[in-house]
């Protein structure tokens, strides 16, 4: 388990725990009370830490290298009954964006999401979860496919941003994202969006317009990353912690500002501490939300979706 910089105390306790277990095994001395004592201490420490994470610490958890990614969720939720569909039918298959039909307890759902890699090689292969225009166009193709066969759509969002590359500009990154946002408002099927890691700006909202939008407890969603915000507004990279706080980018901030519809609780210590538990929770939320959304007539659902977003924004009128 990779520990984050604010988890040092937990690291120390875990070390002690390992030592105690080793001593027990080597010497045959009864260490069980010491072990259980340390285990309790670790949980206490985690509870203390995680009940009071700062915005920047949550950003760190959202980027934890062992955090489950989109395909992990899909595999579990569909019990491996998933067929990945590739390509935008124009340029190529974007590896940073994945999607396909899968079933949840027998019911077919279109899953779409950004995919990050688990090691250096795979991170490059997945372009760090930064999609190009063809990724967004693949996503749109799959959404339309779902709509055609009246299947609901679930998007899993985890991206540090849409890729800012030369070819991306040539192929219209702006247009691709704009088109997706626009078309997502017109989809006649239910759309659920879940931020499972990073929700960075246009890259996130490009698959992020939904009837219900959820954020996992330790994720962030905003217009810019704290680092870039610091570099632009403070003109140095050093203010990422202040920027994270100022941006109000955590799940609870976003929920309190009525910009997302719900928060999904993560296991103690973050999703990576108990992937199965978070998969189960997410599956449950998807099932419940779909049941609720399907009760609505499609036209009504679209109007509700549009009204939800047109109500967003605070301003003064004198």
């Amino acid at each position, binding site marked *: 388990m990779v520990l984050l910089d604010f988890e040092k105390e937990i690291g120390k306790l875990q070390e002690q725990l390992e030592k105690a277990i080793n001593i027990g095994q080597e010497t045959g001395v009864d260490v069980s009370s010491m072990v259980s004592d340390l285990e309790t201490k670790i949980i206490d420490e985690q509870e203390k830490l995680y009940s009071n994470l700062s915005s920047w610490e949550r950003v760190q958890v959202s980027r934890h290298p062992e955090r489950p990614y989109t395909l992990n969720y899909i595999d579990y939720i569909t019990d491996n009954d998933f067929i990945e569909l590739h390509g935008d039918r124009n340029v190529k298959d974007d590896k940073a964006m994945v999607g396909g039909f899968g079933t949840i307890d027998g019911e077919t759902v279109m899953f779409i999401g950004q995919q990050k890699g688990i090691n250096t090689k795979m991170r490059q292969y997945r372009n760090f979860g930064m999609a190009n225009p063809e990724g967004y166009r693949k996503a749109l193709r799959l959404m339309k496919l779902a709509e055609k066969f009246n299947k609901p759509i679930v998007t899993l969002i985890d991206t540090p941003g*849409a*890729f*800012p*590359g*030369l070819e*991306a*500009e*040539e*192929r*219209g*990154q*702006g*247009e691709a*994202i*704009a*088109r997706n*946002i*626009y078309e997502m*408002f*017109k989809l006649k099927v239910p759309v659920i969006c879940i931020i499972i890691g990073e929700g960075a*700006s*246009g890259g996130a*909202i*490009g698959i*992020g*317009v939904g009837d219900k939008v959820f954020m996992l407890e330790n994720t962030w*969603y*905003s*217009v*810019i990353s704290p680092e870039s*915000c610091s570099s*632009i*507004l*403070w003109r140095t990279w050093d*203010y990422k912690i*202040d*920027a994270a706080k*100022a*941006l*109000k*980018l955590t799940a609870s901030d*976003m929920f309190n*500002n009525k*910009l997302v519809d719900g928060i999904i609780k993560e296991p103690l210590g973050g999703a990576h501490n108990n992937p199965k538990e978070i998969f189960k929770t997410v599956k449950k939320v998807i099932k419940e939300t779909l049941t609720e959304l399907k009760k609505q007539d499609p036209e009504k659902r679209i109007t509700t*979706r*549009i009204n939800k*977003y*047109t109500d*967003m*924004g*605070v*301003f*003064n*009128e*004198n």
Partner: protein
Amino acid sequence: MTEENNGWFNRVEQGINTETKDKKEIKEGLWYKCPACKEIVPKEDHEANLNVCVCGYHERVNAKRYFEILFDDNKYIELNADMTSADPLGFVDTKKYTDRLVATQKKSGLKDAITTVVGKIGTYDIVIAAMNFEFIGGSMGAVVGEKIARAIDYSIENKAPFMIISKSGGARMMEAAFSLMQMAKTSAKLTQLSDAKVPYISLLLDPTTGGVTASFAMLGDVNIAEPGALIGFAGPRVIRETIGRDLPEGFQRSEFVKEHGFLDYIVERKNLKNTLAQQLRMFAN
């Protein structure tokens, strides 16, 4: 190596030859110096030429100037003129957002980064939402979103074609996720405009980047631009840093964007009014 023959970087002459007493002062307000060709022309001539230099460089001008250029007799009615930004996040960076707003309002004489108006081009009614780059980089906050939304409602009610003149660095960071959601909000309203079969013309000016490009600016029934405008999603600096090499000449300029298929046509400012009248006539007849 001696000092004389390490040569090529030694100055032969002094850098500045002009004595201070001989220095030519250009009086503020009387002359315009083109940043592209460095030509200096009388401001009066420059304005008569719609702020376009003889070399073809289109100077960045504000919303008000476009209204002068486009509307018959400069007659138009402004919509929601008094709407101003709130500070829902209590945002503070190097200064408070509220202070920044007040300072910008004072300096620019504007209320926010967009002005929405209704007027006539030729015989055609048109609703125009024009962005003000001088207001925090033309950034899109809740006011920009709401004023566009209401302008679209006005267009739908009056069956009047709608145009957005985009000129923006993108989202307004001080409104963070509220700003991000304006991308969705404006796009949602455009679906309603489209359902009502009211035409939407998107005019992209120098510069149009970020969240504005990734929402309403790229969603026109026709997308048009002035020559040489910087149009893109990511800014050139970010792209240069990402790919680690220099960008080709003309990258992300209107001509490049048109060549890659994202603009319908490029129109010089002197032809803008006539072209729009023609375009509106074709939508109407």
